[in-house]
């Protein structure tokens, strides 16, 4: 399987709200930040200090927010050191943290990351310190193809698991952590979904014309990038191969939902506002679903109903809960497939 590694460059296809592609420098910074942050966050959960506010370091902040999601009740604090008084406005740009900045300020926000902006680096900081020099040194020691292309196999398989989740429609949506049935579905269908060659993620014709498809696929890449850290957290103990994943399914699903919310906010989505809320609450059945669909398919103003806390998701859109649970149970199977 390792002979068939599919390496692709998906970030080039991302577009902003106005339908314009991002600058070459921005895209390069994303690639650099991605490999660097994944490497630095490969240990246990620690707070992060980002020393600097250059475009590269703001891209690093973006990727720390995307990947610093651990199964822990304590949020990861991201401290950004900047002398710029308008740094929040800078962070609000689509290439950096976009809507995440304002979402983190909402009262009662229960995401698993916190953003702290300071003028001076705090003394005696305990955690991971990231500097521009550190990033550049790291990148200079890497082959360009390892930085500017991505092995998309895990993302492709993650998308297949989403398809499987859509196919299995008689799961108890409300009893989401009844993993017996999820595990059974995976057992029964994994040969159909995970067997055979892994096709490339990028379909050029579709990607050029459908910005939302691109965002969803890049979303699968971000999700798949966290598989290894989740697998590290699940190791240990004397439990069976899949049993430990089943036992921790609730914690994993909560963490995955928090990661997904952060990712969607960074990708330009926003939560539903008061007027939209009042409108959908008096729509019922298929009309309500159609309204949600309409909101999330407008590339100029992307809105997603599921951008909310895990607890709210359970009461607002419980049928979506299965996707997180399914994907988390499938991680060991996907990793096995990749390492065959």
């Amino acid at each position, binding site marked *: 399987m390792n002979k068939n590694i599919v390496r692709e460059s998906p970030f080039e296809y991302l577009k902003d709200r106005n339908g314009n592609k991002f600058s070459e420098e921005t895209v390069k910074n994303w690639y650099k930040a991605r490999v660097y942050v994944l490497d630095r966050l490969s240990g246990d959960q620690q707070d992060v200090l980002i020393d600097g506010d250059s475009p590269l370091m703001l891209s690093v902040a973006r990727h720390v927010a995307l990947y610093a999601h651990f199964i822990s009740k304590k949020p990861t604090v991201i401290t950004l050191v900047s002398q710029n008084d308008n740094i929040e406005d800078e962070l609000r740009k689509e290439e950096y943290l976009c809507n995440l900045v304002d979402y983190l300020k909402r009262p009662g926000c229960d995401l698993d990351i916190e953003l702290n902006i300071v003028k001076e680096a705090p003394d005696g900081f305990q955690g991971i310190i990231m500097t521009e020099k550190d990033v550049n040194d790291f990148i200079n020691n890497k082959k360009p193809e390892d930085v500017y292309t991505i092995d998309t196999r895990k993302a492709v398989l993650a998308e297949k698991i989403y398809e499987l989740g859509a*196919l*299995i*429609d*008689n*799961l*108890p*949506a*409300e*009893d989401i952590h*009844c993993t017996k*049935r999820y595990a*059974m*579905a995976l*057992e*029964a*269908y*994994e*040969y*159909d*979904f995970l067997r055979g060659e892994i096709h490339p993620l990028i379909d050029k014709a579709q990607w050029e014309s459908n910005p939302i498809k691109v965002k969803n696929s890049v979303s699968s890449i971000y999700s798949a990038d966290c598989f290894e850290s989740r697998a590290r957290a699940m190791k240990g103990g004397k439990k069976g191969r899949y049993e430990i994943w089943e036992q921790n399914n609730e914690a994993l699903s909560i963490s995955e939902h928090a990661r997904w919310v952060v990712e969607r906010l960074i990708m330009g989505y926003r939560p539903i506002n*008061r*007027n939209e*809320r*009042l409108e959908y*609450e*008096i729509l019922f059945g298929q009309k309500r679903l159609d309204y949600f669909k309409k909101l999330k398919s407008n590339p100029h103003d992307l809105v997603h109903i599921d951008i909310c806390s895990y*607890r*709210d998701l*359970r*009461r*607002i859109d*419980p*049928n979506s809960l299965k996707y997180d649970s399914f994907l988390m149970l499938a991680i060991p199977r996907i990793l096995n497939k990749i390492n065959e």
Partner: protein
Amino acid sequence: MKRIGKKWLIHGYWLVVAMLLIALLAVIAWRSFNNYSISPWLSLLTLTMFVGLVWGVCGDLTNIFSLRKQEGGITWCQILILCSIGIWIAGVVWIFQIHKSSSSTIVFGVIGGLMTVVFQDKIKGVVTFIHLRAHHLLNIGDWVRVPKYNVDGEVRRVTLTTVTIYNWDTTTSNIPISTLHADHFVNVQYMAEGKTYGWRIDKTFLVDTESVHTLSKEEAEMLKSEEFNKQHNILEYLPEDEIKEGALNARLYRLYLHHYLMNQPDVSQMPRLLVQWLDQQKEGIQLHLYVFIITNNLDDFDWHQSLLVEYVMQSIGWFGLRLYQLPMSFDEMIEEANV
């Protein structure tokens, strides 16, 4: 439907049973080929294993087919199970050469009939016990309600014949287990553990029809005013353009309560949330609330239920509506005195 993964058809233990079955069939074929006699018990074992294999595989397939709503395979599995039972009965008749003329058959038949009559409750009990346990319909510690016996409590003991339930009024009930197969019983455990959409509140309030009216300009302005909203914040849950002169206060209140409930952190929007007006009666018009509360605790549920009732009592007046109460004899006395 996507093709079933082959892995499940050769699932661990069924593979072992299938191999044993093949070995037994090979022994029978070999003895038959060499004209050796074949023990009827060996034949019975082989037949039983075959039926067991069909049951097991069909059971697993039924579980898999049940993962999707539109799945016809379940019916075929059940037909196969039924056929295998028929094959087993026919096989036993054939293996033991049971036919009308055999005298021992008559004796066995009479004894069997008598035993069935004498031990019918026990037999039903055993069947029910296996049914309930095999399908995980009843476990120790489950909260169950058996309306027929007025039983409502926690299962403490399950035997082949009886179920012991510790009622919430601290009494203990013993009921025949066969009742749980023949009669209706409710297992509340899933709901109690918070694994469903929530605990249902189904409340009706009687609103005095005389208080239903269209808003005057002053009333509409008051509801939209900053001062009023500082106190009650109704604009958070009600579109501003709905509040206007001529709007029906009953409609506004229904809308308001609907939006308010939709946004309460303990109220589930699924499977349904209803705020509706029911039939007009001579006392007034009924306001019906059908709400699911997400909780895994009975006391917490009761607390929320009370909060909801209190909120309706408090907020209904903001829209000029009034709850109805039948005049008490005390009121009538005062009225008469005034006359």
